[in-house]
């Protein structure tokens, strides 16, 4: 892993991939090897929040990877998993964009943004006493 990362960090290579919004719109972007998906999104004006600035204190940069891309990522840390627990519309291939570095594996892949909002709280719902 270290050698793989090390090789990528030192290169100024770029790849192309696609951001896909929740309504299916695709935006082709250039990704710098070694930058995070969150950094890439902000550089390309993709509507991905990053409220805590990549400090693993929120889950607003939630992204959904393809299965094959998910499988080649380093395992999420417990801290990232803690935040994924709270992410909206979690899927089996969800990750936080601030923790995923762009690698050559991502060439031409699609990175999906989750559903923008979920009716988690039905207005007028009665909280249940415990």
């Amino acid at each position, binding site marked *: 892993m270290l050698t793989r990362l090390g090789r990528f960090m030192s290169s100024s290579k770029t790849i192309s991939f696609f951001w896909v919004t929740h309504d299916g719109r695709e935006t082709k972007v250039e990704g710098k090897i070694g930058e995070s998906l969150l950094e890439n999104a902000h550089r390309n004006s993709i509507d991905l929040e990053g*409220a805590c600035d990549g400090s693993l*204190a929120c*889950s*607003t940069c939630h992204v959904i990877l393809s299965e094959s891309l998910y499988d080649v990522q380093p395992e999420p840390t417990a801290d990232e998993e803690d935040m994924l*627990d*709270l992410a909206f519309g979690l899927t089996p291939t969800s990750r936080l964009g601030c923790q995923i570095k762009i690698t050559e594996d991502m060439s031409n892949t699609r990175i999906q943004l989750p559903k923008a909002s979920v009716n988690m709280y039905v*207005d*007028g719902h009665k909280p*249940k006493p*415990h």
Partner: protein
Amino acid sequence: MALRFAVVGSGPAGFFTLKSLIRALPDCKVDMFERWPVPFGLIRYGVAPDHGDIKNIIKDFTELARCDNFRYFGNVFVGKDIDYLTLSQIYSGIIYAHGAASADKELKIPGGEKSKSARQIVEWYNGMPNCEDFDFSKVEKVGIIGNGNVAMDVARVLGSSIERLQPTDVAERAFEVFSKSKIREIDIYGRRGPVQAAMTVKELRYLSKVPGISLRVLQDEIDRGLSPESQNEAMLNSVQTNQRERARKRLFDLINSLPREHNPNAQVKINLRFMLAPISYTASYLTLARTNLQGPELHQVAVPSDETFKENCDLLIRSIGYSSVQIDKNLPFDQELGTVKNLGGKVEGNNYVTGWARTGPFGVIDTTMRNVFQTIDTLIQDIDNNLLQYKPDSILDILKCRFLTFKQWEKIDQYELNEGLKKGKARSKITSVDKMLEIGLS
């Protein structure tokens, strides 16, 4: 004439609203009203001093606030300085995002009135103006009723060494009290079991890692909470198939991994306790009853048994929830739910609501953000249906009270940061409204 919006409240919901409005309607104008001179609501007065990471969001909000479409009106209390009907007349749309941190639930047991509110303790150590002062100088053992994230924050801050708190932006009035603290032990009481614990796994993990604090659970209380229904709620014995089960299982695993005995060298011992209902509180004793879980999966309630006992408790803190209050008599409000009445974020006419004023105090910042998106979607539909009108700029003719602009807040910000720097703190918060106004308007 332009599409002019008023946003009530400058916390996360208010600023996410600003962000969504500007993104959707780049030519619109947004005025934000905040009751305090200083902005950011719960980020400033709710997030714990040792949670610097989430306070990073202020950078993003500050950048947003510098855009030309935006004006900040600090020290303007909607409902007092300007009312609902006036705002409704002079703005194209009003988005209420004033939060929920106002009205506390009572602890309905004999002696419950002697308990202190966790929310008020949080506001006190975070430097909110006009707070009750607390004195813990005679307190050795604390009991906290409720085990949500506010309880985790209070336990962590009360259990922290002064060395740990010193560099944070903790209010100096609280730091002085903490430096004389004799607190040795904190019990956190949940009526139900570990599967129904209310905190998020992140906050519990954080508490478990604080140097000097020993956190433990009691095996008999864990066992008592593991009814067959509870085990199913987290699918403890098979595969978790949805997000709720996954989160429940991960939280249970963390709770179950905590030690059963305290580290004898710890400065402060915290007991995470379950299946206990408070019965009464007198002087320095809390009487508790062991509970049993009854009812179907996901709807189990804790029923107190006849088995009662006493625990020492010099300070009883209730962390059992709070709600919003009606800030203006004309703002439609559900007194029972403690939220502004709405459908999909729409209140009535050109009035909308979002964040905790809409939902009550639930969820994390991501929840609030998604909630804002939904309210703004509703508002955009109304624009598409020509329900909102263009308006002239008239607020400055109407507003009679003194208010602060965002630039004036930035003077206060700079002052607080400079004072903090001198004292080796992240920030030295001003806790008096008069002093805020004096520095801001100077």
